[in-house]
């Protein structure tokens, strides 16, 4: 802990680290100071000039984002001089702005609208012709509306400091300034869509969300991304029909700061596409109870085992552990195959594409890769494999395929109707839910345990894997009730 200073903001006595600036000290203590160019996780530019505050002894308002703290400093975030300054800046920001809110994606979550309402004037005084700037497609996911841009340079600083790919810069001067790609560059890095989030106005918009919905028609649920071991905190925006419209990061300094990767944002199609809608026995639709009973019967075969994926939540793992102990099934684990970490100056996308590998290690004491490898290295027929899958994309690894090929039956717990279901020797399939439809607890690569609440109602028939495992356990304990004979191979 470094040096601390005592300051006063709006009459409140605060003790804050000396290296902070006024805006950080205010925001950390719940005092709002308007800002456009300032972003907690980026360097300070100090160019928008909206964050002006009064400092006792200073002849005129100063910008809070760049103002260093001194002992005994007294700051006011209101008052005539400050309000006058903000009003002036708001007016300047809007004179060349197209005011096309009705067709702008940002409307409803736009800082220009918010601050205009809070600090702006009630009528315009600009009767000249506006400057018109260019419109461009920056990359596969990002479009640019130049005329709306306030040149806060957040996006430029993001590509400098966080993604480190340096695709963007400001071109031209004065009120002709606009954001542009360097010649020959495309904004296609895996973090590109963060510039859409940090754009305080509607200048940078997501091609994927463009014209999809007005934001005031959306409601949000907090969640955690499952696409890799980082476990980015997310906000799921759903429309009135509970359909996911977009996924954006939520700030968590310990996990993902304010960022997340494009892949994580866009990976929600599997919630709607190719779902396993009904329990199946031998490929035919079945009643849940029947399927569970049949599965419980199958698990009595000698050489049966349980195999859980690192996509399973802690709850699922606990249920799997209980069930496997009660039914005397050896418990094994596996993970979605990993790749190399993608390291950027300010963010790392984990190569480990499983949300709960470290949780699995703690809960079961198993390393999923070793566990699967040791299982695959052995020969010999297996009985029934209880496969708790739950991985989007359902492309099984060769090792997993090899294990499944040796088994008599496979009982698949998964939400997808994919490759595994058709080619995995599956006798009983029980539909589960996606990470967005069920609550679950996951431990990320640093062992930080995070709870993801269910963000939406299930879009189709399915139950949480933990519930199915408990039902299986119960059914097995109560004895076989299935009317379907289990062949003893």
């Amino acid at each position, binding site marked *: 802990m470094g040096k601390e200073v005592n300051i006063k903001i709006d009459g409140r006595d605060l003790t804050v680290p000396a290296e902070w600036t006024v805006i950080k000290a205010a925001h950390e203590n719940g005092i709002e100071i308007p800002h456009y160019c300032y972003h907690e996780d980026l360097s300070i530019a100090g160019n928008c000039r909206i964050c002006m505050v009064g400092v006792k002894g200073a002849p005129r308002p100063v910008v809070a984002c760049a103002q260093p703290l001194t002992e005994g400093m007294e700051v006011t975030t209101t008052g005539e001089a400050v309000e006058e300054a903000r009003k002036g*800046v708001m007016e300047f920001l809007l004179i060349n702005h197209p005011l096309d809110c009705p067709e702008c994606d940002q409307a409803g979550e736009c800082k220009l609208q918010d601050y205009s309402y809070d600090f702006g004037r009630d009528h315009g005084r600009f009767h000249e012709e506006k400057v018109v700037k260019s419109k461009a497609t920056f990359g596969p996911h990002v479009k640019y509306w130049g005329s709306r841009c306030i040149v806060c340079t957040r996006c430029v600083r993001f590509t400098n400091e966080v993604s480190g790919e340096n695709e963007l810069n400001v071109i031209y001067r004065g009120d002709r300034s606009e954001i542009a790609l360097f010649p020959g560059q495309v904004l296609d890095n895996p973090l590109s869509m963060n510039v859409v989030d940090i754009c305080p106005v509607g200048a940078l918009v997501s091609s994927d969300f463009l014209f999809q919905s007005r934001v005031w028609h959306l409601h949000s649920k907090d969640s955690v991304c499952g696409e890799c071991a980082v476990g980015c905190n997310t906000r799921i925006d759903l429309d009135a029909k509970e359909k996911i419209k977009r996924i954006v990061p939520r700030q968590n300094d310990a996990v993902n700061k304010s960022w997340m990767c494009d892949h994580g944002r866009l990976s929600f199609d599997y919630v709607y596409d190719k779902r396993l809608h009904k329990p199946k026995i031998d490929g035919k639709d079945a009643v849940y109870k029947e399927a569970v009973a049949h599965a419980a019967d199958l698990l009595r075969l000698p050489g049966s085992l349980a195999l859980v994926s690192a996509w399973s939540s802690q709850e699922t793992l606990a249920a799997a552990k209980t069930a496997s102990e009660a039914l005397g099934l050896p418990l094994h684990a596996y993970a979605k195959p990993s790749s190399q970490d993608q390291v950027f100056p300010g963010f790392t996308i984990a190569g480990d594409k499983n949300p709960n590998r470290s949780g699995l290690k703690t809960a079961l004491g198993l390393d999923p890769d070793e566990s699967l490898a040791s299982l695959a290295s052995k020969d010999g027929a297996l009985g029934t494999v209880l496969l708790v899958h739950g991985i989007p994309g359902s492309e099984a690894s060769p090792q997993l395929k090899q294990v499944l090929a040796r088994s008599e039956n496979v009982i698949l717990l998964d939400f997808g109707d994919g490759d595994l279901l058709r080619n995995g020797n599956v006798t009983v399939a029980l539909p589960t839910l996606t990470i967005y439809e069920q609550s679950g607890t996951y431990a990320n690569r640093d062992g930080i345990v995070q709870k993801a609440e269910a963000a939406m109602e299930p879009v189709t028939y399915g139950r949480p894997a933990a519930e199915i495992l408990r039902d299986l356990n119960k059914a097995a304990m109560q004895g076989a009730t299935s009317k379907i004979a289990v062949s003893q191979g």
Partner: protein
Amino acid sequence: MADTPAPTEPKPIVPFKPVILAHIHEDGSHTLDHYEARGGYAVAREHVGTTDPASLVKLVDDSGLRGRGGAGFPTGKKWSFLAKGTGKPAYLAINGDESEPGTFKDRHILERDPHQLIEGALITCWAIQSHQAFIYLRGEFILGYERLDKAVREAKAKGYVGANAFGKGFDITVTVIRGAGAYICGEETGMLSSIEGGRGYPKIKPPFPAISGLFKCPTIVNNVETIANVTHIVKNGAAWHRQWGTEKSPGYKIFCLSGQVNKPGVYEVPLGITMDSFINDYGGGLRDGKKMKAVIPGGLSAPVLTPDMVAKCTMDYESLAGLGSMLGSGGVTVLNEDVDLVDSIFNTMRFYHHESCGQCTPCREGTGWLEKLAHRIAHGHGRQGDLDLLGDVCKNMRGRTICVLADAAAMPMQSYLQHFRGEFEKKLHDPGLDEKARTFRDEFTATAKQATREHKAPSVLEVGLGMDRT
């Protein structure tokens, strides 16, 4: 602000002969041979590597030399602020991005006596213990660049510049850098950004360059004329420098005289002489016996003076500050009674709109707005309330930006409105202007369009076409 400047105490009049400009009219004054023939590099040879650097800083501080770039900050004081013991190299950055309209003094030093600047740079580098000097030149200074570049090579060949300068074991590298034609790179931190290879965006102060400047290292930024002065002050002493000028503005300065005077040009004069004497004795008075309407005293951004104010004004920092203006870069522009001040301010606003870097909101948007308003009024489309709006826009721009370009644009407009409001009002109420304006515009747009074709955004002149409501 004081109504009248405090009378400067009478000083014995010391005859003054140009110091910095003493040899610029001689043939070959820009060559090393010529410079050495008149005793060049003797001061640097004597002091670099031997004299205690702190004593040199003190000498310059005692001389009272003030920065010649425009702000007039005491040079010795600036040097003494340089952060020491940071473990980082210190840099000297010399600002030769002379772009203030009405100012053309540095180019004469660069083109006609570059060795004088290099010698000053060597002494300064030793005084502030820097091994690296950057000289940043305005991109349009082609001849200045060629001659300075050649001069640096000559000095290097002689062993004055480079490793082991003058054989005293102290390395001084001098690097000449050319700008790309942006006014904002004359702002000290804008220049530093440009040297670093970035856009010429000024940086937030604090930290000041003396603490964290070029490449985040302690940096002293001085104007070309300031550095050229250093050699003479070190050679002749602080008392010699203080013979001229006033208590707070000691010494002499190069002034650039332009406008409707008989002898426009570059004049090196002692500070503190009356502006009247400067315009009449040096400049030969106004051309064709016309009357004076206004004087822009210190480069285009300095608030304008009325003839009454000119009569009271002496050429020093405090007198001009007392009159609500500034000495600035020393670019004195005299406007006679025929000048249309509304057209003049429109042209001024056009300049600042074109040159605003676009970093801070008030300047980026305000300069354009001012130009459009001034354009409209100058072309007979002014409306009731426009003048108050102009004043309001200026007020909203001033003191609200990272650098002072917004102030530089707003100050002339405010002063014109304050002193010559009648001229604006006359245009607001002149019905005949429309016709005149249209003729003017038709002629003007044809040429201006050509000139602005490379810009993507519509120029104001093009915008003007859209305002034909008659």
